[in-house]
């Protein structure tokens, strides 16, 4: 599980690329500084069921496990 958080964070371009991450019901809504650093295949490989990028906002669909993921992410950030 911790691995998943680390992989997601890396695929979002690392902590330095994160402005904020908002845990939602079935996914993460994150705002990044540079969307070009976001690695969609890596997010999918980390267990994302969908990735939508719109401007600086990246939505990552992960399902109800988002709660644990968010807790792990908080530790890493």
């Amino acid at each position, binding site marked *: 599980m911790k691995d998943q958080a680390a992989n997601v964070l890396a695929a979002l371009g690392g*902590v*330095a690329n*994160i*402005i*904020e*991450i*908002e*845990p*939602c019901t*079935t996914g993460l809504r994150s*705002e990044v*500084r540079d969307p070009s650093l976001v690695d969609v295949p890596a997010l999918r490989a980390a*267990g994302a*069921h*969908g990735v939508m990028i719109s401007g600086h906002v990246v939505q990552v*669909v992960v*399902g*109800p496990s988002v709660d644990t993921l*968010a807790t792990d*992410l*908080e530790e890493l*950030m």
Partner: protein
Amino acid sequence: MRHPVLKHMRVRDYLRSLVTHELAVGDAIPSERLLCERFGVSRMTVRQAVDALVVDGLLERVQGRGTFVAPTKMDLEVRLSSFGEEMRRRGMEPSSRVLVAEEVPASPEIADVLELLPGELVFYLDRVRYADGETMAVEQTWLPSRLAPGLFEGGAPDSIYGELRRRGLDPDWGEDTVSATEVDAQDAELLGVPTGRAVLRLTRRTFAGEIACTYSRSSYRADRYVLWVPLRAPRRVLTPREDAERMSDDGAQTETPRVGDEGRAMKTSGSGHS
């Protein structure tokens, strides 16, 4: 200029209270002539009042027959239950007409949303959905064949969720996207509404744990449904810790105020939620 406005509103309020307290669905409202006499207003004023209530969905005009109390719309809460379950919960009897039930190779798009390889087999089901015999929606559903081998043996099943549960897969989460569009000629015919009427287009993916179970696209009659969405304040946002450190020893330092500043602004507003 004040008077006509007031008159129009008086007629409208009168009709609104008739609909709420005295008339039943399908009842005709009093004729224009009667309303003109009762309120001492012109036909124009009466029509204006009726128009407003038609737009609100309280009344419906039937060509050549008159104006009637419109059927109440169903509140459609987007949640993970099947069409049949939703209708039964409302005391209505669901039924379906199956247009297509076949096993086909997944197109690249379907493969992507169901997390398959293109060409893997999927079950495809195209149905018209009814509640108490009235058309409600048209729905196309795809699901991976390997999740439910032999699904169509003995005909298309009544409930896909039911069949999945029988096989130990209980869809427990998913996502919907909803948009409003005008119904195309084909769906209009299936739904029995004029072409160009408004429909709610729902696309849905469901999952059982990490397994993508179904993908569906439906068109719901907008005259039968309102979408009901429960709300909740956003959860506390996560922000990089180093941001906070930078902010505390920021002082009057000469850091270029670019995207970083935006980040701090977000953080401040975000932490207010907790």
